């Protein structure tokens, strides 16, 4: 990932971006974020609820407009790009999934290109379904015939259908069961590598961020408070707020490990001693 400050490799540039709400702008959602995202990086944006991470993400595909500052995508201000053009180059996956219930799965996947006046071939739809580990035959189903995990896989396929450069994911796996969540997370990371995507994933789960991303941004009260590699965070860097977030999965892991040891010792103590001699 190298030097994240080099202009040549920067795909996305937040320039003192702010977003305020309320009649006098008294509610600050994002309060001045400056940051560059390098092409090809997988960035996790972590923070507690209300820290402004979703708002920051949505300013990239102009679902939210900045009150001040600019977001530059490939050097151009996103608010000056045509929304349809911008959103074709930027895939978007979010917790609500938002499959169109009156469209078949295949039509859902093809919607982005269709808006741009292109028709996605059945082969391409089948290929996209295979990419997210779904049967190609699913193209003819209606969304309400699918499980939650399958639906989010379709959501990912839809985001990839327009061959985007940038993939934005807002709590993409938040509503999924842990097993599906892990599997889909792994798959998205693989797709990121395979297609040379630049990915920004908003999550409140530091474990997910540490395991999938190669750069973790931590937000608190609308500001960036840490910008570290996962290894650095695990080594104790990034400040108090970041470390509090890292502490949660670490404590859980330690407790689990301790529990395992206890069980192992108990099993060991109560087991018949016949094998002991052979082991020693």
């Amino acid at each position, binding site marked *: 990932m190298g030097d994240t400050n080099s202009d040549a490799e920067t795909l996305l540039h937040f320039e003192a971006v702010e977003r305020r709400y309320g009649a006098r702008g008294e509610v600050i959602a994002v309060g001045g974020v400056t940051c560059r995202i390098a092409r090809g990086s997988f960035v996790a944006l972590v923070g507690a609820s209300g820290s402004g991470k979703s708002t920051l993400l949505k300013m990239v595909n102009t679902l939210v407009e900045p009150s001040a500052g600019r977001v530059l995508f490939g050097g151009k201000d996103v608010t000056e790009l045509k929304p349809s*053009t911008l959103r074709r180059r930027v895939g*978007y996956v*979010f917790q*609500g999934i938002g499959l169109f219930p009156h469209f078949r799965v295949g039509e859902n996947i093809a*919607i982005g290109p269709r*808006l741009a006046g292109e028709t996605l071939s059945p082969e391409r739809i089948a290929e996209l379904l295979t990419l997210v580990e779904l049967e190609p035959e699913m193209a003819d189903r209606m969304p309400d015939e699918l499980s939650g995990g399958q639906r989010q896989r379709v959501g990912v396929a839809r985001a990839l259908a327009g061959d985007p450069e940038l993939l934005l994911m807002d709590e993409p796996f938040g509503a999924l069961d842990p097993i599906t969540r892990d599997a889909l997370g792994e798959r998205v990371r693989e797709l990121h590598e395979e297609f040379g995507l630049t990915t920004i994933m908003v999550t409140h789960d530091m474990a997910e961020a540490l395991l999938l991303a190669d750069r973790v941004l931590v937000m608190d009260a609308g500001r960036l408070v840490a910008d570290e590699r996962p290894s650095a965070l695990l080594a104790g860097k990034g400040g108090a707020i970041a470390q509090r977030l890292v502490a949660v999965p670490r404590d859980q892991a330690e407790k689990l490990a301790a529990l395992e040891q206890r069980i192992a010792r108990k099993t060991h103590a109560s087991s018949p001693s016949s094998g002991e001699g052979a082991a020693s």
Partner: protein
Amino acid sequence: MSGFWETLFTLGNKLTAHIVLAASAIGLGILVALPLAVWAARSQAVARIALGFASLVQTIPALALLALFFPVLLSLRAVFGEELPTLGFLPALLALALYALLPILRNAVTAQANLDPGVLEAADGVGMTGWQKLTLVEAPLSAPFIMAGIRTASVWTIGAATLSTTIGQPSLGDPIFAGLQTQNWVLVLAGCFASAGLAMVADALLGLIERGLAKRSRWQWGGGLATVAIGLTFALSAQFGDDNEDTIVIGSKQFSESIILAQLIGQQLEKEGFAVEYRTGLGSAILHGAVASSSIDISVDYTGTVWTNELKRSDNPGRDEMFRQIVEWERENTGTRVLGRLGFENAYAFAMRRDRAAELNVTSLEDLAAVAPRLAVGGDPEFFERPEWIAVRDAYGMRFRETRNFSPTFMFNALEAREADAISAYSSDGRLAADTYILLDDPREALPSYDAMLMLSPELAKNEAAVAALEPLIGAISVEVMQEANYSVDREDDRKVMPETAARRLAETIGL
């Protein structure tokens, strides 16, 4: 119920007119409601104002809403010119469309408010423009709910459209109102049956479209839509296929005499080769305005009615002088031509049962005033608002224990059932020919005269052939002949006849 099916099959014309009116009103309602709903979904203020207004309209009784459009359109003539119709299709269309607004608007707004926010975010996320979002996502997802609203509106509108008869628009209300006036229950029932049947068919078809949209079955909603389209095309072609500009329109009020005279005039004109059409069940003010504006060509009006309602006079210059002044006033102010008097009077009077009058020792209004505080008086719905009643009340110091409203047809039944001791009656009423009732004298001449007059619209007045055909009617009808004709329609035994028949007999009697 003999003749029910035969009567039903004569309603084809009214049915097609009803369908065209109701469908146009629903169509206009949809055209207004849907864009308004889209706007309301994007602005709280618009939603509040639009829904508030539509709900307010809903609280106005349909009959009043229809009637209100007459003065509204009349005042709009200042903007759109004298060609703007004030009666008939246009006001009925506007009133019914307003009525249809609420269910469509409410369902459309609710449907949009209940759309899954995730789906809307996805629509933005994949790059839809506002218009694409509306047409590709919001509209198809709201369609079943909007259809449910259209369905409710249609059933209401088809029902309420029967009331458009009162403002001169032909509909299935025509047989209902005419039947009610002449106590022809077969006619009433046929009208109700046709209107209810139409409502049920519309409900079933729109329900099919609604379910088709919900299940996304193109075959189902397409089939429903096609059937509705075929029905409308059929009604439209039937309605306008044989349209004739030269048809003379004869208007009548809501009582037997008026309907009989309209038939008499119509038969006389048909005999001379004119095509005629009837508008029945109109209120006095509306009928007068309709003739003045040539929306209706001929009516029979009464001197006393025009004197008080139109000339706004409360004095009583005497029978001939009153007529003379009305003819002049109409010529100068409305252009309506008063062709002449038919020869009889249908004045307001008070009637009592002969035995009850004898028991109370009443023969005149003076006697009645003395015992009035113990008695109940009955009048038709407009009577107690009329200057005639106020004149009588003030002239004799009349104070009744109770005043009650009855439809003109039921007035004598009320007397018979002792629901009222005295009633307002008309001097040409056929039932007065019988010995059972007496008319009270009016020694102080509080009640003005009510000579029947033949009124021609400014348009028809130019048609010399029509005027010539109508002239034999002037001065030809005596009060006895009229009473007899009225009685033949109002009586309730097996010698009761339809107004057409009564009119034919009347024509024979007076030698036309």
